[in-house]
């Protein structure tokens, strides 16, 4: 939070400078500010980011590799290797993960694959660094896409209402993080839960508190990123779209952490579904990648598998019981039942990631059914 506050203050103070320089220089100034701040707070992170970007750009620019398939394999593995090494070392408790590595590594993989698919032109080194060195999204995402960033960059024009939208979004983000997340769900609800004698009810309240706090923290930080982006004149993609208003798990994953779930859909699910001709294998793989992105650990593997199974069950139940599914999605009462069901499914699947080890997981489940 302190780091996020420093980033926000820097963005706010530097916004008059950004808006006073000519359009061509705006993106360069943003990248320079980000580079200097990151070099101060997380030099290893910025070194890793710039080195990988330079190596990827060299592969695109110079023909070290003849076939385009070799090029894409190399440019995907370049950011993937440090990501896997650091995640693994973090999981074993040896190293800390460099600031924002999980986010910018996925951005670099996105650019590598889009260039291979010829969906976008191979970027110049400067354009690529401008995209990667964008301060509002460095810390907690979203994993925004390069074509969207460049479109927004081209359309940059002073707009007072956009600027005030940005300030308002930051205020809503702070309310979500501090009041709804930290105060209401984390502090107050947890205190209420501690006073309850029944094990099952206490665990139920703790699960609700954990899920509510996770949502408001994450959605709040996404709001801060979107608001800060608007202060600099760049529209950043939405990361949450009222996920607990989803009536089934498939819909939920279209609304929760949209930038990551759409990344996994585009770069894991769709290629694997096309290659294997089996969308269930593709779905399980995509959910596992999504889970392991958070942390390389058994509990996240289980959590990702559970999410995949819940989506599979949703899709199958739609075919097997069309009348129930029609009621859940079509009737107002059914929609509310669906929303409550989805919230509880997701909240209780979070017990896997909230449990430190297998023993505490077993104890948690024992308390539910005790």
């Amino acid at each position, binding site marked *: 939070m302190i780091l996020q506050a420093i980033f926000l203050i820097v963005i706010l103070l530097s916004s008059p400078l950004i808006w006073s320089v000519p359009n061509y220089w705006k993106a360069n100034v943003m990248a320079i500010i980000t580079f200097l701040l990151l070099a101060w707070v997380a030099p290893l992170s910025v070194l890793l980011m710039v080195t990988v970007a330079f190596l990827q750009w060299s592969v695109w620019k110079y023909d070290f590799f003849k076939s385009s398939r070799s090029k894409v394999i190399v440019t995907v593995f370049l950011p993937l290797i440090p990501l896997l090494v650091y995640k693994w070392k973090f999981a074993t408790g040896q190293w800390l993960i460099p600031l924002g590595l999980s986010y910018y590594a996925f951005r670099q993989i996105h650019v590598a694959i889009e260039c291979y698919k010829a969906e976008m032109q191979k970027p110049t080194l400067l354009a690529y660094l401008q995209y990667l060195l964008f301060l509002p999204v460095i810390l907690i995402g979203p994993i925004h896409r390069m074509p969207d960033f460049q479109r927004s960059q081209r359309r940059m024009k002073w707009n007072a209402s956009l600027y005030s939208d940005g300030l*308002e979004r930051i*205020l809503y983000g702070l*309310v979500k993080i501090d009041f709804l997340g930290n105060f209401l769900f984390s502090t107050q609800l947890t205190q209420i839960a501690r006073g309850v004698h029944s094990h099952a009810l206490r665990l139920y309240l703790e699960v609700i508190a954990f899920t509510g706090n996770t949502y408001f923290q994450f959605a709040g930080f996404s709001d801060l990123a979107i608001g800060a982006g608007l202060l600099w004149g760049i529209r950043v993609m939405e990361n949450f779209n009222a996920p607990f208003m989803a009536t089934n798990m498939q819909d939920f994953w279209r609304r929760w952490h949209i930038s990551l779930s759409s990344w996994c859909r585009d770069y894991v699910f769709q290629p694997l579904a096309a290659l294997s001709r089996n969308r269930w294998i593709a779905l399980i793989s995509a959910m596992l990648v999504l889970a392991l992105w958070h942390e390389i650990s058994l509990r996240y593997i289980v959590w990702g598998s559970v999410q995949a199974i819940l989506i599979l069950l949703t899709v199958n139940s739609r075919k097997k019981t069309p009348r129930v599914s029609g009621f859940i999605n079509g009737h107002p009462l059914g929609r509310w039942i669906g929303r409550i069901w989805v919230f509880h499914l997701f909240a209780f699947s979070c017990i896997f990631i909230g449990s430190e080890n297998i023993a505490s997981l077993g104890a948690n489940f024992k308390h539910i059914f005790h």
Partner: protein
Amino acid sequence: MYSWLLKYFPKPYALVLIFIWYFILILLVIYTIDMQPGRFRYLHW
């Protein structure tokens, strides 16, 4: 975002309501940050 307010209130009143809304939100943020452990607790009375 707040254009719906203009359906029910004249513009000056709507503006006042929006400012009160922002004031409450800012106060909530300051209050909840302030009351976290290890903070200054200026706002505790």
